[in-house]
């Protein structure tokens, strides 16, 4: 299944990868990165943060390559000239999770927007990432698709980005990572939106929440990889960044991704989606 890593003879050196917490927390990077490091004589330093900060690190030239999931932000990053060589990598999906008792009665719904509307209507506690992460951005787009009235949620003004949230005490915007949000939701027996990978990993550790809604095409979560433009910042290791992108989207690595999670959860956590993978299918 996994071909042994054959050194390519290249020595690309140190690569700083800014990525979302989901790729790191799920254990995916730990599983696949040694293969890249062996093949390309590279040392990869992973900075696992929210999508917003990962993109900012790229803009500031503090990372060589970014692996994120927020298509509109990625497009803006490319349009502003901060990135070169954007490629699709893979996707996973979001799920709405909640307490087994399901007080909002949403279990089994296939329309994520309708489920959120019911949570709002019954005023059950919903925990939001509230941290400008890919998950938070997705959550806001789902709320916008409902007829729940939303309010400007930019907590402190004078910021160029704006956020929306439903009004009400039942909506908790906590500004933390997925793991912490699941912990808080578990404590409060509340609903939240989570990526499947992090949820399954935490569920295996005894989280007392269940998947309520899944399968809506709007819960689709595509990841893209982008090299930071070396013309913007001279310290960018573009050789390593391009090698990483080529490797990540190659058929062999995509095969690795498609197997990840099978042994532990009985289902893959990420679905390969690179051009090379789709061409081979």
């Amino acid at each position, binding site marked *: 299944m996994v071909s042994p890593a054959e050194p390519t003879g290249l020595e690309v050196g140190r690569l700083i990868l800014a990525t979302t917490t989901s790729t790191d927390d799920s254990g995916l990077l730990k599983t696949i990165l040694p293969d890249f490091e062996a093949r390309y004589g590279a040392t990869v330093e992973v900075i696992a943060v929210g999508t*917003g900060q990962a993109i900012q690190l790229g803009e500031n030239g503090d990372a060589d390559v970014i692996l994120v999931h927020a298509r509109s932000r990625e497009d803006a990053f490319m349009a502003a000239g901060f990135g070169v060589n954007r490629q699709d990598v893979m996707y996973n999906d979001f799920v709405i999770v909640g307490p087994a008792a399901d007080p909002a009665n949403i279990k089994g719904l296939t329309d994520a927007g309708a489920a959120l509307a019911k949570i709002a209507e019954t005023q059950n506690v919903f925990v939001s990432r509230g941290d400008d992460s890919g998950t938070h951005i997705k959550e806001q787009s789902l709320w916008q698709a409902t007829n729940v009235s939303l309010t400007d949620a930019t*907590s402190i003004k*004078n*910021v160029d*980005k704006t956020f929306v949230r439903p009004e009400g005490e039942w909506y*908790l915007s*906590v*500004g933390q990572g997925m793991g912490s949000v699941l912990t808080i939701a578990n404590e*409060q027996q509340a609903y939240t939106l989570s990526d499947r990978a992090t949820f399954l990993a935490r569920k295996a550790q005894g989280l007392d929440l269940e998947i309520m809604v899944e399968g809506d095409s709007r819960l689709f979560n595509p990841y893209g990889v982008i090299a930071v433009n070396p013309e913007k910042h001279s310290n960018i290791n573009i050789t390593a960044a391009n090698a990483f992108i080529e490797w990540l989207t190659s058929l062999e690595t995509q095969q690795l991704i498609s197997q990840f999670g099978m042994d532990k959860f009985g289902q893959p956590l990420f679905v390969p989606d690179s051009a090379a993978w789709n061409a081979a299918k």
Partner: protein
Amino acid sequence: MNDLLDGSIQATRLIFSLDSALYEIIWLSLYVAGIALAFSAIVGIPLGAALGLKRFIGRRFVMALLYTGMGFPPVVIGLFVYLMFSRSGPVGALGWLFTPRAMIIAQTIISFPLVAGFTMAAVMGVDPNLRRQLLALGATGWQATLAVLVEARIGVIVSIIAGFGAIISEVGAVMLVGGNIENKTRTLTTAIVLETRKGNFELAIALGIILLLLTFLTNVAMLRLQGRE
């Protein structure tokens, strides 16, 4: 460098913008730290004075505990308070987790050893003859102790300043037990972490400057309490 400069400009602008979310965050930070500090002072100053003045069995042991508490990682205290108040914890039924109450409890535990420890050191620095003479002159034990505390007031104020500094700048414990909930348990430090994570470095550094200013002003006020040398 640009973020730093823009941050300073934005800090100034924010302070004068009367942004309600910002003032709510500042108020909560001061409220939680203030109450926690009051609890710490009520327990810590008498304990520090007792340890400094009295000789009793187990005194060295209590001192060792206090010194350990002074260097204890706040995040571990946060974790302890979290587990106590968690749904599955011993007092979880109170429902205090992710409320300012849990934050006050964590910050009290963090600041109390500092207040007691520095008070003890200040009291020990006072000439022991003062207390003896006052007692010989007919003062009661309480009066003599109070006189020693007044004599050691500079050190006692320093103990409170140290306690305040430790908790107003603390982030791990309040994040853990408060949950950083918008309009509810978000403090200046947790807001800084959040804005940094969001990539709003400029706003984050502006909040940092505001926190620094706030600490500075509070300390100036406390130093006035110390009185003149």
